[in-house]
């Protein structure tokens, strides 16, 4: 028997790590990976709440999140490849064409 709150706190820890990595990392691919980490943390809360309410709809939410995340990963990585072709860098500090 584990309190559901523990699962939610684990999800909160993972989400905060994802937020920190998103802000601190300087590599586009790693930033993208921290977004995936945040999505996973939210998925854990969905599954925990589905368990709590004895409803299957939370798990279906997670299913749709997974589908959208897979599509997002495919498109995002294609954008990163195109970005690297034109700028020859993956560092977000040097990708500032819009700002300058």
């Amino acid at each position, binding site marked *: *028997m*584990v*309190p*559901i*709150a*523990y*699962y*939610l*706190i684990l999800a*909160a820890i*993972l*989400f*905060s*790590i994802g*937020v*920190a*990595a*998103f*802000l*601190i*990392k*300087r*590599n586009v*691919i*790693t930033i*993208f*990976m*921290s977004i995936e980490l945040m999505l996973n943390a939210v*998925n*854990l809360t969905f*599954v*925990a709440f*589905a*368990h*709590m309410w*004895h409803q*299957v*709809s939370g*798990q*279906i939410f*997670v*299913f*749709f999140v*997974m*589908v*959208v*995340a*897979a599509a997002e*990963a*495919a*498109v995002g*990585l*294609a954008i*990163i*490849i*195109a970005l690297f*072709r*034109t700028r020859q860098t993956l*560092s977000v*500090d040097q990708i500032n064409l819009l700002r300058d």
Partner: protein
Amino acid sequence: MQLALFLIFGVLAVLAGLNLLAQRHPINSALSLIVVMLSLAVLYWSLGAEFLAAAQVIVYSGAVMVLFLFVIMLLNAGEEVRSKGSKVASLIGFPGAAAIFCVLSFAFLSERDKFGMATLGGELSTTTSNITEISHVLFTSLLLPFEVTSILILVAILGAVVLARKEL
């Protein structure tokens, strides 16, 4: 039993997440993200979501992370360099993330009695399996969203092909 499972894989997930944050090389970060996803799959299973545990292993740690690793190797991404921007970001990032964590855990802990306890396996219903229930809802009341996601994936495939072409 479930507490042991939760502690082992929860600690593993947190450690791998911190490793993602600490590592400079993207390959190391990607491999620790795979560890996070696999331990989350075990936690899903312990919460009675067998289908999602399998899907997590196949879709996330299988397909998505392999795609990430392919791109990292294709672009020959090296170690990231620390710059002035990263100092500012860590100055804001760590307190911000800590604040988010404090708010979330305060909210969860203050309501912890209402959440109740999780039991191992925790069948949503004793008569039907997890996959039966999910597929029943997915193919009856949520049939239209399900079909729309298939179109979404089709569009994403086309978009990825177009974006990754040589001459953009």
